[in-house]
């Protein structure tokens, strides 16, 4: 078992863990953590692909590595936006529940 395969398996495991959190954790901040786990799992897959593509004197294929850097930036921006929304929701409604508690299908509320 070489390092890149190992990293690939770790990536798969992280994706699985994150997906579990996506379904099972009610708190949006936990879902955000789950998203970041899935994200880093996916980046590891990119990393594995990059490592396996070592050629032409490079120890890695630079293209997927560059993509990971772009991806990390975007994921961070997403997390920050989500955090701002969560905090604001907590202030405005006194809770952070994603699933409305009211009667079914009526969560969008009345206009007035």
């Amino acid at each position: 078992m070489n390092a890149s395969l190992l990293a690939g398996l770790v990536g798969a495991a992280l994706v699985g863990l994150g997906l579990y959190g996506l379904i099972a954790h009610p708190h949006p901040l936990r879902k955000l953590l789950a998203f970041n786990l899935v994200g880093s799992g996916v980046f590891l897959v990119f990393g594995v692909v990059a490592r396996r593509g070592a050629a032409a004197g490079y120890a890695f294929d630079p293209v997927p590595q560059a993509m990971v850097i772009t991806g990390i930036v975007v994921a961070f921006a997403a997390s920050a936006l989500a955090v701002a929304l969560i905090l604001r929701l907590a202030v405005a409604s006194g809770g952070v529940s994603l699933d409305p508690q009211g009667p079914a299908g009526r969560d969008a509320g009345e206009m007035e």
Partner: protein
Amino acid sequence: MSVLPLLDVGLALLVVAVATWTMAARDLFASVLGYVAYGLLLALVWVRLHAPDIGLTEAAVGGGVTGVLLVTAGKRLDALKAATSGAAPRLRVKILAGALSALVAGALAFVVASLPTPAPSLAPQAAAAAAGPGAGLGNPITAVLISYRAFDTMLEKIVLALAVLGIWSVGADAAWGGAPAPLRKARPDGAMVLLAQILAPIGALIGVHIFWVGADAPGGAFQGGALLAAMWMVAMMARLVEAPRIGSRALRLALISGPAVFLAVGLAGIAMAGSFFAFPPAFAKALILFIETFMVLSVAVALPMMVAGPPEGGQEP
């Protein structure tokens, strides 16, 4: 020879274990702390994958800035006592969730294990292009980011600016134009201030260095900018500096200077080198460094502003 693989396996198990802890911990704050540790460990994995650039990024962003973001969020949530997050799912939902995610992860593991050999790679093309479009850059990743896939990078910086605006837009109407809340409410103690006074300039210097060498060695605009951002955040936490008002023209200029300069140089490419986002070989390196300088500035400003959150003050609607 036999130690490294063992270390690898150990590291892998540790990463997965910490990740599991992050998902399984009952306490929200514990799981946030778990995630910060996880980010740092992940940086090691990247180093083992011969990806020091990503390792730097992951350490700075995954561990550092994201850590501050999440810890601050956790604290602010605690302060709000707004814990109602909906009922925890029932056991059978958890079992279903586990089964489904295991299936997907299993399929993924299978697929990753069956990646083709020899692996396709753009490394040869990248090496060949280093003589042309990426002239003068020893770090192929920087070449990819700033030259071959410049379009991605420029757009990603716009995403960053949009995220900042999105975060601001969540604030109250009355607070618009004002400054975000301080990262720490309490006055820091002397040790913290002293630490910040020492750490911030040194860190900032390292950040500039990382950016500067990024053309040829691991590092680059984003990593450098992220480190500068972290240092600014340290200073903010020590209340050495306060977050700027979001209405400030200078702040906004700094935020968009990276993508704007990138866009302008990219457009000018058609006059200079016959194609959008092309650089004339003669002064490609100079142009790239020019763009990167502003990108460092944008990153260094954007990350702390995102962590700081929307402007505060004014009345709740």
